[in-house]
């Protein structure tokens, strides 16, 4: 899993990067809150972050506050790293939008445990978000199939009846065949939508759309 470290102190940053990389995280680093905030605007920004509280430009608590004010597609899990340890500070940090905090100087075992909790939370939230999206898609799929297949049945069926009465050499025969073929294509699409069991997307222009083929495999 990718993780972002925001820490102005070069030694501390290098140390965090080393241990987190050792534990299997893919680490990207920022030297201050503002740089971190910019990195979070990328479409593939990490969902998990360790943020130092005391940083120039924008501090960790402000960074949490700014990130929480944004509408984000994916959930974030933010851990504040702080030498402040009285209850008031901790409350202030959590209220700014942090999910957890680690007191400096930190114990590496504790750091690992808390970051791992973050990873579990993110996986869980991602899974839940996927399920919610799938259930929304299934509701829409049901409505689309129901509303669309009724008129499709009529058009498809009546064209079939018209074809029964036409000779193959009639000028309208081929035209009607084409119409029927195209309606058949829409019918195939609604059948595919009916088989959706997964939530898969594909890029479309600048956003993502549901990949009907892969979602109905």
């Amino acid at each position, binding site marked *: 899993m990718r993780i972002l470290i925001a820490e102005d102190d070069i030694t501390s940053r290098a140390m965090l990067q080393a241990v987190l990389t050792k534990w299997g995280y893919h680490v990207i680093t920022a030297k201050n809150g503002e740089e971190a905030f910019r990195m979070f605007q990328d479409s593939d920004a990490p969902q998990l972050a360790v943020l130092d509280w005391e940083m120039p430009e924008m501090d960790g608590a402000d960074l949490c506050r700014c990130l929480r004010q944004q509408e984000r597609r994916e959930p974030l899990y933010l851990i504040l790293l702080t030498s402040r340890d009285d209850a008031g500070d901790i409350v202030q940090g959590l209220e700014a939008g942090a999910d957890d905090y680690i007191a400096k100087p930190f114990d590496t075992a504790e750091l690992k445990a808390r970051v791992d909790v973050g990873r579990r939370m993110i996986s869980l939230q991602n899974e839940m978000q996927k399920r919610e999206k799938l259930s929304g898609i299934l509701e829409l*799929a049901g409505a689309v199939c129901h509303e669309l297949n009724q008129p499709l*049945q009529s058009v498809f*069926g009546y064209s079939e009846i018209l074809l029964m009465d036409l000779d193959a050499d009639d000028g309208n025969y081929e035209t009607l065949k084409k119409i029927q073929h195209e309606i058949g294509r829409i*019918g195939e699409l609604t059948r595919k939508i*009916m088989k959706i069991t997964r939530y898969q997307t594909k890029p479309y222009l600048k956003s993502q759309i549901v990949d009907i083929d892969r979602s109905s495999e």
Partner: protein
Amino acid sequence: MKEKRILVVDDEPTILNLFTQAFERAGYLVTTAETAEAALKILEKESFWVFFLDLNLPGMSGVDLCRQIRHQYPMAIVYAVTGYASLFELSECRDAGFEDYFTKPAKLSDLVEAADNAFKKLARWKKR
């Protein structure tokens, strides 16, 4: 003549008209109903062996109607023609006693073939 009669239930008159035309062209006599309740009323007076039911009906559903029909006439052959069915609904269909199901838009020739097969089956059962 009883053998050649089909009861079609669908809440859309256009679809009823369409299916009626298709089955009549194939030589069947068709009776239609827009609701399950209306279908049950018809069944009080006349009997049928072959049915085509829409699943999504106002009031009683096509699945419940199928259960009632199969309860009354265990030999009846009932087909589902549905605009949408999840996997769960399909298994429920089999459980309710549907012979087979078709998703809309269904080919009329497929529906007629299903009717032909149903009557062939019934004829075979009667001969034994």
